[in-house]
């Protein structure tokens, strides 16, 4: 059987085209690619066949060649002159004005009053170094609170790893809760590995109120009551403890708090019978799942964003890793992999005497979320409007659109209006850019260089070489930041003749060099298992923390417990609203791609056939959804594959003003969501919403 085309294979159509290695940045999974260009145009892009994704691409990536010459992109810097009114300015003027404001804010409010937020982070390491080391603000943040904040904090505190990946292919038993591996944003080698595992006879159990693209492939779909996964997992652990199905030798050697956890589960009475009343999963099923999981080798249980959509998602996520640990299923073949990273170095260094030190703690700590792995962004509007915990006066938004993506969108829009400095750096205009004083056009992944970590199982570094000349006046972040640094007295540190100069510094510790990587596009190291046997775990105890010392230190219960989610349906609002994604769209970034728009141009809300029949709602009807916070109208999709009592919104559409051709198509659901912040992780509770529905 033929293999996928090799890098050297020549297609007639590509004969005189130039190939440069690239990184697809249409979503945060950053797959390595090969970009073929001719006369300044992208003629073909394919997955890098030698890297770990082995040539395959996702639908979003495949459609992203449109970016290279999309007339809807931002072409030049702009300054806001009034509501929805912008005027074109030059780079020199824009950077000069921004630098002036940065200097003024620092003098008046302190450097901590400036923060930087990103959704995807191409080259934002330059902004990080400039803002955190030169300017002196600790407030450099991503978008995790809108994503896998609970999962990330659980992985950090239980396993001491920021981002476990998955050796699906070698696994025999896979249980997934609130993670739609095959439907939402895809880590491609993992999708392939999961399907390969199933072909080899692995058992897949999917726990989700919605029959997702992943549930389609499962042997067993468990449509659990929304936001009760923690009870199911605690009860599985209870069975494993009561029946001594754990790997005692592993637990004694490699875990911390084993005896306390066992006693805790029994004392609290976390039995399958207890969980049945909460989860609507039969006690017998829970018992069987626990036994199947404990008996299978190798096995894994995993989650991602889903559990964190509820206020009780953090302990549920912790229990995911506790269960893997109880059975000794960590970092071995077929397990969760505590990924090794490629030894990449910073592109530049700031001498100690040139560094500015903040005097205030980072915002997330000052807000009372010391363990939060990323900023609780839901609390940002309050910080801006009320000056608590301390004043926030300047914000950068790199390729992020919180005015659309956060619940309580009105409050966000209002807060942005109060800032002394607001800068959007993006390839496209957005609802957030519309509220910013400065809008700076960012180069796309066809026009910029980057070296970064891949999310493959082995340590892997991937390289993006600019394939095209700059698009109009768009600039990569490293050039934008250099412009600010030059105007603020740090130009000598941000100095290079070509991108290769800083790229060489990033790869200097790799057992390869930049010139080789410019041919191959990547460097991949050896995949090693059970690395903890040499290194231990990066937790306070050096072991897997079934009982978290980080939690204890901050006064939280160190042992995972069950609490009800915050918002529960009642007589007035009898449905639970939940969110899922489309496989052909990434968050808020792809909806105006004309190819993807043709495949899926609008979103909908799904409800169970029985509920729909009872309420006289037919497939395709317009349906009103009312929450205590607001009201929207959205198209109904009636299907058997959704738990009764649940309304499941496919989110990401309904742009009001700016997303080019996607404008006005579909429904933006966030205006009916209230502010909901996980009390420890600071993650956003997107599914903490009760609603009533009717046909309109």
């Amino acid at each position, binding site marked *: *059987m*033929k293999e*996928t*085309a090799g890098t050297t*294979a020549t*297609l*007639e*159509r590509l004969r005189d085209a130039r190939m440069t290695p690239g990184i697809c940045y249409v979503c945060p999974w950053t797959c390595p690619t090969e970009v073929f260009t001719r006369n300044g145009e992208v003629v*073909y892009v*394919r*997955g890098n066949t030698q890297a770990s994704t082995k*040539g*395959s*691409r*996702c*639908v979003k990536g*495949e*459609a992203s*060649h449109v970016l290279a010459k999309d007339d809807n992109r931002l072409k030049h810097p702009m300054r806001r002159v009034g509501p929805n009114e912008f005027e074109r300015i030059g780079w020199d003027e824009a950077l000069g004005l921004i630098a002036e404001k940065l200097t003024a804010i620092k003098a008046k409010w302190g450097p901590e009053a400036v923060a930087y937020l990103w959704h995807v982070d191409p080259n934002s390491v330059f902004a990080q170094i400039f803002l955190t080391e030169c300017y002196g603000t600790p407030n450099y943040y991503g978008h995790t609170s809108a994503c896998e904040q609970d999962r990330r904090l659980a992985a950090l505190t239980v396993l001491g790893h920021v981002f476990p990946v998955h050796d699906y292919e070698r696994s025999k038993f896979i249980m997934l809760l609130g993670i739609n591996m*095959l*439907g939402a944003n*895809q880590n*491609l080698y993992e*999708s*392939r590995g999961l*399907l390969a595992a*199933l*072909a080899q006879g692995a058992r897949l159990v999917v726990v989700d109120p919605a*029959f997702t*693209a992943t549930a*389609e*492939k499962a042997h067993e*779909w468990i*449509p659990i009551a929304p936001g009760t996964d923690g009870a199911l997992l605690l009860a599985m652990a209870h069975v494993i403890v009561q029946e001594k199905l754990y790997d005692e030798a592993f637990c004694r050697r490699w875990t911390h708090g084993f005896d306390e956890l066992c006693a805790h589960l029994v004392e609290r009475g976390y039995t399958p019978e207890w969980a049945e009343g909460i989860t609507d999963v039969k006690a017998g099923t829970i018992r069987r799942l626990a036994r199947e999981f404990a008996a299978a080798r190798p096995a894994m249980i995993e989650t991602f964003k889903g559990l964190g959509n509820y206020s009780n998602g953090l302990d549920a996520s912790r229990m995911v890793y506790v269960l893997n640990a109880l059975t000794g299923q960590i970092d071995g073949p077929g397990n969760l992999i505590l990924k090794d990273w490629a030894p990449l170095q910073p592109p530049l260094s700031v001498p100690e005497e040139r560094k500015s030190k903040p005097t205030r703690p980072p915002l997330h700590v000052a807000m009372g979320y010391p363990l939060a792995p990323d900023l609780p962004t839901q609390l940002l509007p309050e910080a801006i409007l009320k000056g608590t915990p301390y004043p926030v006066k300047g914000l950068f938004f790199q390729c992020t659109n919180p005015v659309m993506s956060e619940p309580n969108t009105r409050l966000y829009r209002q807060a942005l209006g109060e800032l002394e400095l607001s800068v959007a750096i993006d390839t496209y205009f957005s609802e957030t850019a519309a509220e910013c004083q400065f809008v700076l056009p960012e180069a796309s992944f066809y026009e910029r260089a980057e070296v970064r970590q891949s999310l493959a199982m082995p340590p892997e570094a991937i390289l993006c070489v600019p394939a095209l000349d700059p698009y109009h006046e768009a600039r990569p972040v490293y050039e934008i930041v250099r412009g600010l640094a030059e105007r603020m007295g740090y130009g000598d540190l941000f100095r290079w003749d070509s991108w290769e100069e800083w790229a060489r510094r990033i790869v200097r510790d790799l057992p390869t060099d930049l010139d080789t990587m410019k041919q191959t596009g990547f460097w991949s190291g050896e995949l090693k298992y059970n690395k903890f046997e040499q290194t231990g775990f990066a937790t306070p105890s050096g072991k897997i923390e079934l009982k978290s010392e980080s939690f204890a230190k901050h006064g939280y219960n160190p042992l995972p417990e069950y609490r009800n989610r915050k918002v529960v349906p009642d007589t007035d609002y009898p449905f639970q609203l939940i969110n899922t994604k489309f*496989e*052909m769209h990434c968050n808020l970034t792809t909806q105006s791609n004309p*190819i*993807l728009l*043709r*495949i899926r141009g609008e979103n909908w809300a799904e409800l*169970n*056939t*029985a509920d729909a029949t009872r309420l006289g709602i037919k497939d395709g009807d317009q349906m009103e959804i009312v929450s205590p916070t607001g009201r929207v109208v959205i198209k109904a999709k009636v*299907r*058997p*594959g*959704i*738990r*009764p009592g649940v309304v499941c919104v496919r989110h990401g559409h309904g742009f009001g003003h700016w997303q080019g051709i996607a404008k006005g198509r579909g429904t933006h659901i966030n205006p009916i969501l209230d502010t909901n912040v996980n009390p420890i992780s600071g993650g956003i509770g997107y599914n903490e919403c009760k609603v009533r529905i009717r046909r309109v």
Partner: protein
Amino acid sequence: MGKKGWLFDVNKCTGCHACEVACATWNQTGAVSWRTIAKIEAGSYPNVTTRNLSMPCLHCDNAPCMQSCPVAAISKAADGVVSVNQATCVGCMLCFWACPFGVPTFGAEGKMSKCTYCGDRPADLPRACEEVCPTKAIVSGDMEELESLAALQGGERVGGPAGPALFIIR
């Protein structure tokens, strides 16, 4: 030369549309799509099943489109690939009605177009749809080769008088 065809694994397809986009991009099909993706959910809660299908031209042995064409614009090459000569096509759509799988598409110019089996890709390279597929649900190749591949995985050739060149694993 062996006859060309497809092997499609329903169990692997997730219905993601990547093949559709890859086909449209490589073949520059503009507003029409040469692959049709269907997600078919059946059953009643909680016993639900979904089947995903991704359908190109099946390059049938006894291509009904070819037999229906009044101006002989459709032909079948030695390697089994069915193609249309757009210069001859009059856009009458008889082929669309004849095709059991609804394959022929008609763009703004009114001429029939459909999967060319990526005619400009060498035989030892994957088709555009096959190359992109994240789960390797699509395999192209010689029918004899596909038959043995299908047999290994319990697949079978799709029947019917048209003789579609498709093995399916379900």
